[in-house]
C-alpha cells in the first residue's frame, strides 16, 4: 500500500511503458510522450527504489542489428506490485500507454 501511494502518475506511466514495450529509454519516451529530461531521471529514481533494474544487452546482438547496444529496463517483483497497485489507482494508464504505442505503429 505504501508503494502504491508513493508513485506519481508519471512514474506509473513509465512503469507501464517498460512493462508493455521494449524496455529501453527511447521506447519509453515514445510510448509515454514524455520528454527525455523527465523519462531518464524518473527511470533512475525507479531503479534506485528497486522498482526496475537495468542491463546492457550483448554487443553481438546490437552489432547483428547494426545499431548501438541498448540498456534494457525490467520491472522487479516490487515494481510489478507497484504497477498493479497503480493501475487500480490510475485505471486509464493501462489503456493509455498501449494505445500510444499502437498509434505510433
Amino acid at each position, binding site marked *: 500500500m505504501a508503494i502504491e501511494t508513493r508513485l506519481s502518475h508519471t512514474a506509473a506511466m513509465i512503469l507501464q511503458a517498460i512493462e508493455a514495450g521494449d524496455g529501453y529509454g527511447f521506447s519509453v519516451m515514445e510510448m509515454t510522450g514524455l520528454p*527525455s529530461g523527465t523519462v531518464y531521471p524518473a527511470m533512475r529514481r525507479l531503479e534506485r527504489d528497486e522498482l526496475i533494474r537495468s542491463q546492457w544487452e550483448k554487443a553481438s546482438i546490437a552489432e547483428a542489428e547494426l545499431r548501438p547496444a541498448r540498456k534494457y529496463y525490467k520491472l522487479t517483483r516490487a515494481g510489478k506490485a507497484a504497477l498493479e497497485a497503480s493501475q487500480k489507482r490510475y485505471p486509464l494508464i493501462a489503456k493509455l500507454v498501449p494505445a500510444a504505442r499502437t498509434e505510433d505503429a
Partner: protein
Amino acid sequence: MTRRFHLALLRAASLAVRAAEREEWIAEWRAELWYVTPWRRTAFCLGAFRDAFCVRRHAPAPVHLQSPWECLGVLAVLAALSVFFALQLPLPREMFFSRTLPVGLVSVSGISFDNYRQFPAARSNVAFFGPVRFREGNLPVALASRTLLDLLHLPATARDAAAAPLVLTLTAWHRNFASDPHIVGRRTTVGGHPAQVVAVISDRVWRLPGSAEAWLLADEPDLDTQSVGYVVARLPSRTIHVTIHRADGGIAAFTCLPLAEPGLLFSFLLMMAVSAAILPAVTRFSLGEYPPSFRRWAFLAAKIILVIPIVLFGSCDVFSLIAPAVQPHAMIVVSVIGFRWILVDQRRRCPVCLRVLTHPTPIGEPSRTLLEWYGTELLCTRGHGLLHVPEVRASYTEQRWLRLDSSWSSLF
C-alpha cells in the same frame, strides 16, 4: 545541427556526472540518441542536462569533504594556492597588491593646455592629453604630453623610441593588435604619422578619462595650446582642490579625485555587497533548527574565512588567464556560488560531529503533502541523529534535527 554538435552537448552534460559513472552514463545517452529523429535531437540532448544534474544530486558527497577537518584542509590548500597564483600572475598582482601611489584626476571641463601649465606639481608628475584626435580603424587615439611616460613609470627605453611613443590600453592591445606578445617596440602609423608602441596599460588600474584607447605622446610645443582636455597628476594626497587663473582673468576651481581604485578593499566590499544581495535568491540564509553549538559556528566562520580568498583571488587568477574582460563579473558569480555552498554544506552537516550527513531517504507521500510530512531524511553515520528536510519549504516546515540518544548506538 550535426551529430558532432549533439555529442558535444552530451559530453558537456556528462561533466556534471561523477567521473566513475560518466562513461556508462554517456554510453546510454549516445545509444539512445541513435533512435531520435534529427529534428528532435537538440531537445533530446538538452534533457540530458537535467538527467546529469539528477544523477549528480543523488551521488554521495566526496569522501574528502565529509570530515570537517579534511574539508577545512582542502579549503586552506585552495586558499593558499589562490593567493600564491595571485602573487605570480601579472593582472591579479597588479589588481590586488600593486602599491599605486595616489594619483589625482582633474575634472575634465575647461582644462586647456594653458591651464595645465599652471598646475601645482612637479612637471614630471603632471600630464596633459586632449580628446580623441585620430581614429585608426576602430582605435580612438588622443595626443598626450610626454610627461605621461613619467607618470606611468615606464622604463627609460620607452623614451628612446625611434618614432612617437604610443601607449595602448589592454583592450586595444587585444582587439587591434591580436594580443601580439611582441607589441612593445612594434612600429605602426597613427593619423599618417609613424609611431612606436612603448607600453600596454591595464584598463582597470589606469582608467583615464575620455574615450581614448591609445595615447600618442608628443612634445609640449606640438600640442594645441587652445585645446580642452584632461590633466592627470600624481599628487601627495588622495583628494585635493586646485585653483587656476584663466587667461581671460577668471578663476577655475577643480577637485582632484583618486584615479586608481583601492584594489583589494574595493573588490572585497563589492563582492560581499553584491553576493549578499543575490544570495537570498539562490538559497536560504536559515541554517536549520539546531541546539546551540560553538563548534558549529566556529566551523562556519572558518569556512567563510577560507572561502573569501578562494573566490576573491582564485576567480581573478582563473579568469585573468581565460577571459580578463569578464573577470569582475566572474568574481561575483563565483562568490555567490561559494557562499551558497557554505550555507548548503552547513545545513547538511551533523551539528555534533560536523560530518556530512548521508543516506538520503525519501519519506512520506508526495500526493499528501498538505496532510502529512513529506521530504528527505538524512543520517549521521556516527549515530548522532537524523535530519528531516521538507520537500516543500515554508515558514512552518523548516528542516528539523532529531537527536538520537545512546539507546540507538547498537545500530551504528
